[in-house]
């Protein structure tokens, strides 16, 4: 990302935060209308968590098809960022739940599903730590990510529909759901956060590429190359 884009992202996010606290009216109908502003930050984090999760599954599938080490690195980075945003979404959600429902944790289906998503990521990182050899690690972790995918689809999209939830459903896209001002601020924050996501992703990827080059120069593992480790 160019410096201009980075600066713009910073200004944009600062602007949206200012708008969320200064311009956005308190949300009526909540127990503490002022605290409800957190929705504007909470929902984009949750959406990005699932974007990262989908990216992880897509790159894992791509790795199994192409056996490209860089694709494996991308899958791993997507999981790392997914974990980060899952933590952010959980913390912001818990803060709001404490204000609104009087308890930080209610075993709401969406709360359950994000904890399970974090467990999947944790298991994914444990698995990556448990396999020494690089190509084998990439293969096994990609396979695991794809196995966890149907389970997560179930927890994220099916479970909240068969169990009663505290979370409102269908607020983001329907006209009746969210106040237009809130919706605008929410999606503006999402745009800023997405830019940060892309930036972090590319930074991590550069680190990964640099590490691989370094390893090659030290020629510890001549068999792994960045571009063509086709077996």
């Amino acid at each position, binding site marked *: 990302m160019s410096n201009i884009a980075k600066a713009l992202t910073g200004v944009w996010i600062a602007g949206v935060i200012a708008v969320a606290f200064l311009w956005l009216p308190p949300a009526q109908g909540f127990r503490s209308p002022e605290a409800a502003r957190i929705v504007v930050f909470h929902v984009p984090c949750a959406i990005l968590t699932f974007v990262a999760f989908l990216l992880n599954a897509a790159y894992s599938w791509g790795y*199994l098809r192409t056996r490209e080490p860089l694709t494996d690195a991308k899958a791993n980075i997507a999981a790392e960022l997914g974990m980060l945003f899952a933590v952010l979404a959980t913390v912001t959600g818990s803060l709001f739940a404490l204000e609104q429902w009087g308890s930080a944790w209610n075993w709401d289906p969406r709360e359950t599903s994000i904890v*399970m998503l974090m*467990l*999947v990521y*944790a*298991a994914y990182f*444990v*698995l990556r730590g*448990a*396999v*020494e050899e690089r190509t*084998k690690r990439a*293969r*096994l972790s*990609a*396979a*695991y990510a*794809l*196995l*966890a*995918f*149907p*389970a*997560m689809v*179930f*927890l994220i999209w*099916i*479970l909240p529909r*068969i169990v009663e939830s505290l979370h409102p459903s269908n607020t983001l896209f329907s006209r009746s759901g969210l106040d237009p001002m809130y919706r605008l601020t929410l999606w503006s924050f999402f745009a800023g956060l997405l830019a940060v996501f892309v930036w972090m992703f590319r930074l991590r990827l550069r680190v990964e590429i640099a590490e691989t080059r370094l390893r090659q120069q030290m020629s510890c593992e001549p068999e792994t190359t960045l571009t063509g480790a086709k077996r």
Partner: protein
Amino acid sequence: MSRSSGWAREAIAVFAKDWLVELRTRVALGAVVLFAFTSVVASGFALEPPSGVPAEVKASLLWVILFFAAVAGLSRVFVVEEETRTADALRLTVSPAGVFVGKLAFNTVLMCLLCAVTVPLYLLLLEAPVRHWNLFVVVVVLGSMALACATTAVGAIVAKATTRGALFGVLAFPVALPPLLVAIHATKAAWVSENGWRVATGDLQVLTGFMLVIVPASLLVFEHIWSE
């Protein structure tokens, strides 16, 4: 002979071979059944007198025991191939699909045996108030099959890892969680609900659907796990 019947025949051969090996050593059976037995007895001691414990708690505890017993033994069927260094021979002679289906059948039968031993003992020791017997049997069979389906491919991954230790439990839990949650819900319905079948219909559908999704998905990635 056509190709499909080819891998079916291979799967049956793998299944028969695995049971022969298992009956000689009885490692997986011993691990699974003794683990379940110990936990049931421990729960019986802990929840004395059982009549004071809500049926919901008992239903959840039953599945927690079954899940951890499964974790104790279901990866064995792949780990044993790596430990005895027979995996390569199997790779040379049998197609990946044949291996997977054979091992999946092995694990499913193992889970059913586990349930056949554990569940009656559990019902006896903890005085579970079962209202709808046929529903309960269906839930136990479907639930244990779903657990076997969810964890068999994970077992194959674990067998390839360098440090196996507690890895299987860590990896299996997120994948096995959906059938576990649903089975607990349906068991509560079978024990407590007035009209259990109506409450549990959705659960049974989800259990079946989960198996129909996870088995093809496992089959799809198994090739990449299994072949070196």
